[in-house]
């Protein structure tokens, strides 16, 4: 299968609504970045001794890694299980995963108290630490993703020799990627195993690593549907509907397994009572469960909805939002009771997060424009104009943003 660059790429810059939003988010992010690195964490966040981890960990890292899970799910399906039908969507998925991990690393630079020491785990090892394991896995997996992504760039510049090398080690790379992902996706749940007395029992369970892993697969599938649908709308591409329908079917099974395990676990730990005890935690618990289990399952079990592009898109968005809520609940809501503190992010925290999300979308758009990401369609395509001048404003803004 051959891939191509997006044919709608044009060399004139038009200020659209979304570009305005992007510029606004980037400006906010730049200002927040300035505050973070000139005045420290105290001035730029609502974190305190009772609440040392906020939205930069909850959303940017936990959700960021989760949202990038399509990378290992899809590469495993295509290269290990040899499901050829899915091949047409593998490149956008790897791109999403690669960007996701880059942005997670960027977010970490904001959250770490001493970001210039981020390399310390390389030489100062504590194998008893989950954080150490996560650090290593994320580092190695980002490298794996860079290599999995590299053929796209190498192809673009027609560098045959390194291309040959990467292709030769592709299968071992994919296997490493799947193992590393399994390890750190679940380990992000393991992080919270050490706080049984602090985390609310609706979320604390010895099965946290299993739930984090299963939900990563679900979100990986949902993100693939989401980003394929969005790309087809935005870049005027043909939607790979049969492929997405197949992902939708797998998603039903994964969500079903997750739902059963989740409620069995609650019942086994005698925590089901908490799910009906009115309170802050209960409402957020049911918000999470409705978004990530009830609504998407109700939608996706209906063959008619599963077959429609809009039905799939809606279900995928629900699953993504649901598991984002889940990660926020585990890392924020679940701690508010025991610490006796309410945490709500400061504007600077939101601004940095917003800028990171915006950067993700923008980089995706740029990559699609300049690199062969989407499969070549039958129709003849016009030659692509010189790409470098395509979006000068945006690239300039991103240099200023500092992330």
């Amino acid at each position: 299968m051959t891939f191509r660059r997006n044919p709608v790429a044009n060399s004139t810059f038009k200020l659209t609504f979304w570009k305005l939003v992007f510029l606004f988010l980037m400006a906010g992010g730049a200002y927040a970045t300035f505050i973070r690195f000139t005045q420290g964490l105290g001035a730029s966040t609502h974190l305190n001794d009772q609440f040392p981890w906020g939205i930069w960990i909850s959303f940017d890292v936990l959700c960021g890694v989760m949202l990038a899970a399509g990378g290992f799910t899809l590469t495993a399906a295509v290269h290990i299980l040899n499901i050829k039908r899915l091949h047409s969507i593998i490149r956008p998925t790897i791109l999403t995963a690669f960007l996701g991990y880059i942005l997670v690393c960027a977010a970490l630079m904001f959250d770490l108290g001493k970001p210039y020491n981020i390399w310390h785990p390389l030489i100062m090892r504590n194998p008893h630490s989950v954080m150490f394991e996560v650090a290593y896995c994320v580092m190695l997996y980002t490298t794996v993703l860079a290599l999995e992504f590299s053929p796209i760039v190498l192809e673009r510049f027609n560098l045959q020799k390194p291309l040959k090398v990467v292709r030769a080690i592709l299968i071992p790379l994919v296997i490493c990627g799947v193992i590393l992902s399994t390890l750190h996706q679940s380990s992000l749940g393991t992080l919270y195993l050490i706080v049984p007395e602090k985390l609310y029992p609706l979320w604390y369970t010895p099965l946290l690593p299993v739930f984090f892993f299963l939900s990563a697969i679900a979100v990986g599938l949902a993100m693939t549907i989401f980003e394929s649908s969005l790309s087809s709308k935005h870049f005027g591409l043909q939607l790979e509907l049969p492929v997405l329908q197949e992902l939708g079917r797998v998603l039903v099974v994964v969500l079903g397994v997750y739902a059963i395990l989740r409620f069995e676990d609650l019942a086994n730990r005698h925590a089901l009572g908490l799910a009906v005890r009115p309170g802050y935690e209960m409402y957020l618990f049911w918000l999470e469960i409705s978004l990530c289990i009830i609504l998407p399952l109700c939608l996706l079990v209906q063959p008619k909805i599963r077959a429609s592009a809009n039905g799939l898109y809606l279900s995928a968005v629900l699953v993504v939002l649901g598991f984002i809520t889940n990660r926020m609940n585990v890392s924020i809501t679940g701690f508010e009771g025991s610490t006796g503190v309410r945490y709500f992010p400061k504007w600077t925290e939101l601004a940095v997060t917003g800028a990171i999300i915006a950067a993700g979308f923008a980089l995706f758009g740029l990559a699609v424009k300049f690199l062969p990401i989407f499969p070549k369609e039958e129709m003849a395509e016009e030659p692509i104009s010189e790409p470098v001048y395509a979006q000068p404003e945006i690239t300039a803004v991103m240099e200023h943003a500092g992330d």
Partner: protein
Amino acid sequence: MSKALLYDSTVCIGCKQCEVACAGQNKLPYDDAVAAEQIQSDHKMTVVLTRNDKFMRKLCMNCNDPSCASVCPVGALKKTALGPVTYDASKCMGCRYCMVACPFSVPKYEWGKLVPKVQKCTMCPDRVAAGKPTACAEICPTGATKFGERDDLIAEAQKRIRDNPGTYVDHIYGLDEVGGTSVLLLSSVPFETFGYRSNLSKDPMPMLTYRVLSHIPDFVPLGGMVLGGVWWITHRREEVAFAEGRKSSARSKGGSGETSNENKTANKNGRKL
């Protein structure tokens, strides 16, 4: 042998000399304003709490098997054989997992600084290594904070509870909370009054994560084998199907194609990504 501190709140008179000595030892500012603060913070490693004429110290418990040292990715926090749990700021990268993990919520952070570090009582490791008591124990005018061998102090605490019926809550806090700590507390009122958790496990917390982490060395080769095996099966199936298809359509050519077919398939697969 492991050293420990025994704090007997019934002997404490709330003079806060331990706070003063601690600040001096750790080169932290101390004045009336700091003295009035009833909370541990980045500039106050120990605090004497007052509730209805009862006193209670708060300081790092220096656990026997500390969560903070277990979770620290760079090993900045360490449990020493003598008892103190030490902190090396030069290793720390500021992930703050220690603060999340500590069952006593002890580690505090210098949120206001550009080069922040974790602040917590480290049980005066230099003094203890030199055979001296901690600064707080040395200065305590009533002997409410006592420094010594952990086993001796446990025996003494048990004796005090036994000899003074009705004076103490029948519990030595720190004897087996999270597997035991190097700070032992005696009180005449329930420890919860002062915010000490009563729901802590008697087992060391690090086991909770290590139980999972210890499977990784098994998982990696096993997972690699399984994934490799699945890849082998799925691709072999394809090769066989491909080869059989070729044979049935071009049987007259004979068995010339097996290896070249494999090569072709390999090339095709290689071009995939």
